[in-house]
């Protein structure tokens, strides 16, 4: 007796087990989106509306904010979440508008590089920011620095 071959053989190999980056990317976009909503509007409210409002923003204002660990962490969280959110969004656009190949790899590599550099640089600046670096000439320092 001959057996008819199964017609429903899978055309695409089943997904490998393990971490599914597409899924976690999708979840990350939703989660970071919600958190960013709070962070960004909180940031805008504090910087632009509270107290003197937008006129208060100057070098001293930023220096004052980054003297407080709360605002340091707020800004770093905003930096990381927004840059990864944006870079991942750009990655999906690259997936949509280019075919797999060298061009796609280059674009994705450039995105990864840009995001990494900005995140590292931004994090470094926020945590090591010193408005009155020791040993600088007095005429370059802001007025609120204690006279040495």
């Amino acid at each position, binding site marked *: 007796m001959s057996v008819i071959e199964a017609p*429903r053989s*899978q055309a*695409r190999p089943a*997904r490998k087990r393990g971490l*599914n980056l*597409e899924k976690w990317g999708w979840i990350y976009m939703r989660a970071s989106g919600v958190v960013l909503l709070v962070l960004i509007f909180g940031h805008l409210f504090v910087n632009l509306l509270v107290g003197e409002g937008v006129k208060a923003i100057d070098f001293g204002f930023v220096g004052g904010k980054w003297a407080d660990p709360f605002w340091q962490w707020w800004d770093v969280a905003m930096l990381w979440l927004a840059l990864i959110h944006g870079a991942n969004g750009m990655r999906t656009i690259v*997936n*949509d508008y280019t*075919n797999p190949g060298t061009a796609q790899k280059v674009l994705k590599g450039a995105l990864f590089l840009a995001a990494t550099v900005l995140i590292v640089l931004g994090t470094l600046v926020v945590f090591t920011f010193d408005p009155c670096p020791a040993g600088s000439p007095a005429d370059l320092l802001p007025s609120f620095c204690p006279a040495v």
Partner: protein
Amino acid sequence: MSTTTLEQPPAAEAAIQSFTVTFLIRRFDPDVDTEPRWQDFDVEMYATDRVLDALHKIKWEQDGSLTFRRSCAHGICGSDAMRINGRNRLACKTLIKDLDISKPIYVEAIKGLPLEKDLVVDMEPFFASYREVQPFLIANSKPESGKERVQSIAKREIFDDTTKCILCAACTSSCPVFWTDGQYFGPAAIVNAHRFIFDDRDDAANVRLDILNDKEGVWRCRTTFNCTDACPRGIEVTKAIAEVKQAIMRGKP
């Protein structure tokens, strides 16, 4: 108006008004053309006629070489999905009175699938992803001898919407993500997977969820709602895709 109908006896049924409608049809004959071209046809139509009637009139009275698919002509077989005025519709369900006939009506083949001739596309990539989600009942249980598997009304209700699919490809070929590289499963395949994933008589939900958890699976859906808008059966396609996403995150239907 009711008064005029009263004054005029029904015997004086005036000839029903007809309109000359211009159709611009995207023609492509692979034996002659290298690129598709637009050709216009003027057709005498009634407001209650359908776009499919216009195509019939053109094919039977003006140009017999016009090629299109249609089978039942009543919105059930899903053969005549095409792009009418830029929207994916079934030609047999689109009435002339619902279109703006002061301008030409554009009719072209659905997008994202290889064009074969005039309004006919190669549906094989579409059916290939349909086959991949295993759209058939996989049950490990044996029903009682001589009986069917019993399902409650509430359990049937869960996937009722997605049983309505007629595989016309209007949704998949309206999806901008499917247009990009054709690797995405497409809304229709996900709808038909949904129909079995949420069926409690079926035992292979996890197999299908694994398939759709793929790189080209549900995560490529960008919720543009083109598919929901295109579906001639009124299936809430985007909602079904969202339910599959939720099921994948839960790990079970």
